[in-house]
C-alpha cells in the first residue's frame, strides 16, 4: 500500500517522511482521460476552480491540525493566482462523509474541477500523520495521493509541501510554497518594531520568514545596520552586508548555527554580495579609493579575483544559473545601465538600451530572463528582459520599488515598495510584494515591521 520515501533534511530542520498513497483502480482509470492541467505560460490564466475540503481528524486536536493545514493549502494556492478555492459553504458532500472515493457528481454540480481531501492523525509515537488526495473531478481519477509524517509543530511546512505537490501536478512546474524569504526588517512609521540606535537609525535587522509571511524571526539584534541579504542556493546560509564596527563589509550568516563571518579580507567597503547558483562563489563589489569594481571570492579556496577594472561604478552582479555569465550594473557609459560579461570578466556588452537608468539585474533561476529595477522620469519600475536585452517588459511601477528576487521556479518575483516620506518623517512605509511574471496578481506579503531587500530561498531541503 505505501512506499516510504525519505526527503533529505539537515540536522537542524525537522524531518518529514513521505509515503505514497496508491489507489490502483483509480490510477489505471486516469490514463484514459484528458489530463487536467493549467498552462501557466499563457499571458493571463483563468484561475482553476478547486475545492479544498477541511482535512478531517478523529480527535479535537487532529481536527484542528487538519483544518489549519487545509486553510494554509488554500491560501497558498489562492495567492498564486492560478487557483480559485471554492467557498466551503457551497460544498454538498461534507469532508467527513467522503470515504476513500468522493461522490464526484456532488463536486461537478458546484463547478470545481479539482478536489483535495485529507486527514490528520496523531500516531502512536506522537508524530503527526497527514494524508491527502488530489482528484480530477471530471475524469474521476486520483492525481496525487501522499502521506507525511512529522512532529506536530511542523504542520505548516507540510501544508506548503502539499500545496507545492498540487501546484506541480496541475501546472507541470515546480511549486514555490515551501520556501522562505530573508529580508531587512525595520522600525515602521507606526512605531512597530522599535529598535533604532545611533548606528542603526532605522533599526534595520536581518529577518527571515516563510514565503507567506508566517514564522517571522530576527536573525540579527539590530546593533549594526544590515543590508541586502541573499540566500545560498545550496546551504542554510545568507550573504549580506553589515556595518558591524562601523566598517561596511560582506558577511555570511549560517541560519542553523547563527554563526556570522566576514567574507574575505578586502582593503575597502565590500557590498552587493550574491551567491553563484552552485553556492561555491560569492560575487560582490569592492570600493577602493572611491571606485567600485566587481570581485569573486571562491568560498573553498578563499581566493578572490577582480573581474572589472573600469573607473565607472560596477555593482549589483548576478551570475547566470550555468555560471558562465555575469549580469551587472555600471555607469561606465554615463548613466546606470545593465551589462553582461563572461564569468572571467571578459566580453563585456551592454544589454539595456531603453530610456532611463537600469539597475539591480538578477538572473532568473531558469536562465531565460533577467529581472531589473528601472528608473525613469522620477519613477521606479520592476521589469524583465532576455539576457541579450531583447523583450523588455515592465511589470510594476511606483514612486520607489526596487530589488526584484525570483521564486525558485522563475515564475514569481518579489520586491519592495517604499512610499513617499513626509517632511516630519512620517509615511515612507516600506513593504514587500509579489507579482507574476505575466505582470498580473500583485500581492502584498504582510510583515509586522516595515520590510525591504527581500531574497527568496530555494525550495526548503
Amino acid at each position, binding site marked *: 500500500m505505501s512506499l516510504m520515501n525519505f526527503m533529505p533534511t539537515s540536522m537542524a530542520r525537522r524531518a518529514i517522511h513521505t509515503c505514497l498513497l496508491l489507489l490502483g483502480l483509480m490510477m489505471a482509470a486516469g490514463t484514459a482521460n484528458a489530463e487536467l492541467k493549467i498552462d501557466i505560460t499563457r499571458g493571463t490564466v483563468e484561475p482553476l476552480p478547486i475545492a479544498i475540503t477541511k482535512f478531517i481528524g478523529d480527535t479535537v486536536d487532529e481536527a484542528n491540525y487538519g483544518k489549519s493545514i487545509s486553510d494554509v493549502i488554500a491560501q497558498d494556492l489562492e495567492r498564486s493566482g492560478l487557483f480559485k478555492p471554492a467557498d466551503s459553504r457551497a460544498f454538498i458532500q461534507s469532508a467527513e462523509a467522503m470515504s476513500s472515493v468522493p461522490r464526484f457528481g456532488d463536486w461537478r454540480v458546484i463547478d470545481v474541477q479539482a478536489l483535495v481531501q485529507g486527514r490528520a492523525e496523531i500516531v502512536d509515537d506522537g508524530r503527526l500523520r497527514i494524508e491527502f488526495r488530489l482528484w480530477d473531478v471530471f475524469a474521476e481519477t486520483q492525481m496525487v495521493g501522499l502521506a507525511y509524517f512529522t512532529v506536530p509543530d511542523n504542520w505548516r511546512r507540510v501544508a506548503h509541501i502539499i500545496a507545492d505537490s498540487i501546484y506541480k501536478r496541475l501546472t507541470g512546474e515546480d511549486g514555490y510554497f515551501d520556501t522562505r524569504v530573508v529580508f531587512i526588517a525595520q522600525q515602521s512609521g507606526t512605531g512597530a518594531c522599535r529598535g533604532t540606535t545611533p548606528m542603526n*537609525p532605522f533599526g534595520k535587522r536581518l529577518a527571515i520568514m516563510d514565503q507567506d509571511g508566517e514564522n517571522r524571526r530576527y536573525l540579527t539584534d539590530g546593533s549594526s545596520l544590515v543590508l541586502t541579504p541573499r540566500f545560498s542556493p545550496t546551504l542554510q546560509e545568507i550573504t549580506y552586508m553589515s556595518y558591524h564596527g562601523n566598517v561596511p563589509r560582506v558577511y555570511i550568516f549560517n541560519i542553523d548555527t547563527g554563526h556570522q563571518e566576514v567574507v574575505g579580507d578586502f582593503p575597502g567597503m565590500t557590498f*552587493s554580495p550574491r551567491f553563484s547558483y552552485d553556492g561555491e562563489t560569492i560575487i560582490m*563589489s569592492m570600493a577602493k579609493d572611491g571606485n567600485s569594481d566587481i570581485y569573486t571570492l571562491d568560498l573553498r579556496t578563499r581566493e578572490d579575483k577582480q573581474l572589472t577594472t573600469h573607473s565607472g561604478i560596477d555593482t549589483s552582479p548576478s551570475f547566470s544559473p550555468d555560471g558562465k555569465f555575469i549580469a551587472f550594473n555600471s555607469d561606465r557609459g554615463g548613466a546606470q545601465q545593465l551589462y553582461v560579461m563572461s564569468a572571467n570578466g571578459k566580453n563585456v556588452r551592454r544589454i539595456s538600451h531603453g530610456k532611463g537608468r537600469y539597475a539591480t539585474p538578477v538572473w532568473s533561476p531558469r536562465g531565460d530572463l533577467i529581472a531589473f529595477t528601472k528608473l525613469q522620469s522620477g519613477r521606479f519600475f520592476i521589469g524583465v528582459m532576455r539576457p541579450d536585452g531583447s523583450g523588455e517588459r515592465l511589470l510594476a511601477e511606483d514612486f520607489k520599488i*526596487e530589488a526584484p528576487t525570483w521564486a525558485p521556479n522563475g515564475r514569481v518575483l518579489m520586491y519592495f515598495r517604499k512610499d513617499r*516620506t*513626509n*517632511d516630519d518623517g512620517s509615511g515612507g512605509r516600506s513593504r514587500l510584494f509579489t507579482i507574476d511574471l505575466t505582470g498580473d496578481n500583485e500581492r502584498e506579503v504582510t510583515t509586522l515591521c516595515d520590510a525591504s531587500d527581500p531574497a527568496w530561498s530555494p525550495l526548503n531541503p
Partner: protein
Amino acid sequence: MRLNILGVVAAVALVAACATDPEMTSDTEGDGASSEASSSSAPAGIMPGSEADLVVNVGARVYFAFDRFDLNDISRSTLERQAAWLKANPGVSVALEGHADERGTREYNLALGERRANAAKDYLVALGVSPDRIRTVSYGDERPVAMGSNETAWSQNRRAVTTVAGAGS
C-alpha cells in the same frame, strides 16, 4: 581657485546665486555662509579641534548634484576651510562620510556615497592634509538628514560630511 583666499569670498557670493543649493535652506551649521577659515572666533564652550568646532566654525558638509560627485565652488571653499582647520589641529583624524539621496537603488547609492566621500578626501589631500588622517565610509541613502521625499530634502542628503574620528555623525 585652489588655495586662493579670494575664492572664499567668491564662494559666498555664489551662494546667493544658487537657488537650488541646500545651503540656501536654514542650515544651522552655517557652512558656506561663513568666511571664517579658522576657529579663532569660537564661542565659549566649544573646544578647538572638537567636532563642535568643526561643525560650527568651519562647516562639516559639502553637497552634490543628483548622481554627481564633482565638487562645486562652495564645496571647495568649505573643504579649504577644513584643510586649514586640520592643519591647525594636527592631532585630529576625521572620517569622511558619503551619502546619497533616495532616488537611486541601494547598491548604486553605496557606490555613489563612496565616490562622494573620496572626492572630498582627494581635495583635502591635494590641499596638503595627510591621507592617513582621513577615513572614508559610505552610507548610501541610509542616513538622511532631511526626511521628505522632495528635492529640498534630497539636495540636503546628497552630501559628504566630515566628522572628527570617534565622534560619529
